[in-house]
């Protein structure tokens, strides 16, 4: 294997992993606040269509003549819109699950259906169009040699995903606000009794999760395949959800688990294309899922540093009840 091939394969790994990582990082914060939002797939689709639609509209040649700066900022505006769309869609879940105290599993599933439906509806006028992908913003000279290529040839969203994992780890473990969020997730009644707004904290967490899922969804329509097709996230939201659980609600494992998944899905494709047909194709296809689960399960099984599941996960909080 040449070094160029390895680096090219790493690019594929990053493309598979980044949207899952973004969504999972958001969901981790949501779950740490004691809320189980299963609507990740729906929020990703909302972000995916919003990011695509805004990028396409801002890049419109007629508009660019009047507002030349707009086209330059089109992808950035697309990402921001994706975050807003994801956060707005999460409010639907928030209203049902937090304000009304409805069953969180049912509310989350409703959000998946809602997100799938509304993205398809808005998306009908964007079928069959492509946009310029939101690729690397570094000058080409930086990515001319293999090492430069390894570090400088990704979409800005890839670096954003890494930064957000670090920020979330720092926020949860080192800040007072993070402590409050965890307290709300561990014991909502106590947090409430010492004067914290449980519902308020959870709303913020849910919206953060929505925004991150939205950006994760936008990675599909703006980076991997710059086009819109219904349901194009193809179940990655569910994988993000599973990763949060299997990582034991820990950021570092979440990062590792997401990349395990990406590495094994890429290995699967290379193995197939190289003619390793001694194993059935379905086995290779199941490999990324199996490996991610096995590795994370093995890590969680160790005596030290097991799961950090929040005690109030999925329990509705109804004040004064």
């Amino acid at each position: 294997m040449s070094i160029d091939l390895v680096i090219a394969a790493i690019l594929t790994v990053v493309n598979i992993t980044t949207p899952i990582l973004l969504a999972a990082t958001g969901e981790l914060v949501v779950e740490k606040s004691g809320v189980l939002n299963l609507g990740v797939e729906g929020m990703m689709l909302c972000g995916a269509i919003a990011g695509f639609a805004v990028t396409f509209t801002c890049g419109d040649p007629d508009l660019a003549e009047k507002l030349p700066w707009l086209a330059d900022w089109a992808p950035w505006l697309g990402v921001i819109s994706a975050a807003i769309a994801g956060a707005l869609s999460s409010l639907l879940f928030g209203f049902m699950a937090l304000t009304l105290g409805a069953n969180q599993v049912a509310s989350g599933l409703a959000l998946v259906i809602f997100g799938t439906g509304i993205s398809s509806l808005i998306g009908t006028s964007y079928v069959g169009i492509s946009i310029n992908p939101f690729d690397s913003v570094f000058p080409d000279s930086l990515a001319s040699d293999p090492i430069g290529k390894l570090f400088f040839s990704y979409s800005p969203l890839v670096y954003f995903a890494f930064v957000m994992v670090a920020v979330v780890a720092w926020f949860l473990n080192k800040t007072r606000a993070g402590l409050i969020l965890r307290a709300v997730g561990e014991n909502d009644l106590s947090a409430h009794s010492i004067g914290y707004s449980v519902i308020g904290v959870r709303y913020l967490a849910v919206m953060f999760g929505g925004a991150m899922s939205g950006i994760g969804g936008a990675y599909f329509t703006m980076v991997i395949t710059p086009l819109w097709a219904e349901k194009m996230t193809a179940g990655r939201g569910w994988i993000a959800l599973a990763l949060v659980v299997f990582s034991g609600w820990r950021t570092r494992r979440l990062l590792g688990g997401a990349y395990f998944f990406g590495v094994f899905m890429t290995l699967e494709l290379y193995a197939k294309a190289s003619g390793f047909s001694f194993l059935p194709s379905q086995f290779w296809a199941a490999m990324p899922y199996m490996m991610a689960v096995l590795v994370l399960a093995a890590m969680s099984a160790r005596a030290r540093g097991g799961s950090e599941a929040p005690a109030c996960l999925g329990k509705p909080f109804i004040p004064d009840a």
Partner: protein
Amino acid sequence: MTNLTRRSLIKSAGAAAVAMPFINRVALGDEVLKVGYIYLGPIGDFGWTWAHEKGRKEMVAALGGKVTADYVENVNEDQSAIPVIRDLAKSGHKLIFTTSFGYMDQTLAVASEFPDVKFEHCTGYKHAPNVATYNNRFHQARAVMGTIAGMQSKTGTIGYLGSFKVPEVVMGVNSFALAAQAVNPKIKVKLVMIDSWFDPAKESAAAETLANLGCDFITTHTDSPAALQVCEKKKIFGFGQGADMTRFAPHACLTSILDIWSPYYISRAKAVLDGSWKSGDSWWGVKDGSVKIAPYNKSLPENVQAAGEKIMKGWADGSYEVFTGPLVDQSGKERLAKGVRIEDKDLAVIDWYVKGVEG
């Protein structure tokens, strides 16, 4: 859903009594055939389901007021398809098309409950007195793509992005490989199955993988244009399927397979209307107008375009058959003797790849 109360029941019974004479008159004069469609993907997939939807619309347009047609999209290929198909049958649809391989047993199960409803299962092979099967010979167009790739490839390695190892895909792979080998005997075909019909991110990753391993032409047997976008980015070439996908890859897309379902849908709906419908196995191709290819990319040299056209003409007049012996499989075993053309019954269940296919 309908809110059933005693009062509304009485009301609707009254309305029915009033409407009854009119309904009878309509029924006596000109009965409208209700046709139902079960779709695997969303109608906006710009591929497989999109093409069926186009066929449905063209059928309704062609048969004027004589048919109406409904569809259900995003139906999974598992047990959950049964109630969906049953609902269509119960709600008065007399001709039901189930448009994916994975609905085979579900279609037969529901068909046994509704003997007076005609079912048509796309790409399957199981029949009943009221279940027919139909498919298009898409592999005929793959031979054009194989010819182009074989003539134009500089690396001598070309890629095939597949979904599942089902006969439909296997015959496509073989057709592509055999046509490429006919113009370049040394060509290698790399095959990746992604175990999904629609997963743009994985399709894209698989196309990247094929390109990284040296393929400079990639043909896709999955439902999104994702792979073509990768070809465009990597400055290699590809082919679309289901619809003309040039708009997604103006430089990379050399031509696309067009699935034309309307001739079949029109003929079958007509057959139900005039009472001549019979179960059977229809396998239409280039000569029936069911498989076409999109205009070639302008960048394609004229002699290559002419070679592609020659194959399309050959399919149309029957002078060409890509599965003509000698055919040898991957293990080196001879599958078809020299000069013999494959029979439809063998082609329909083909599960082996020809020599030269890797993967």
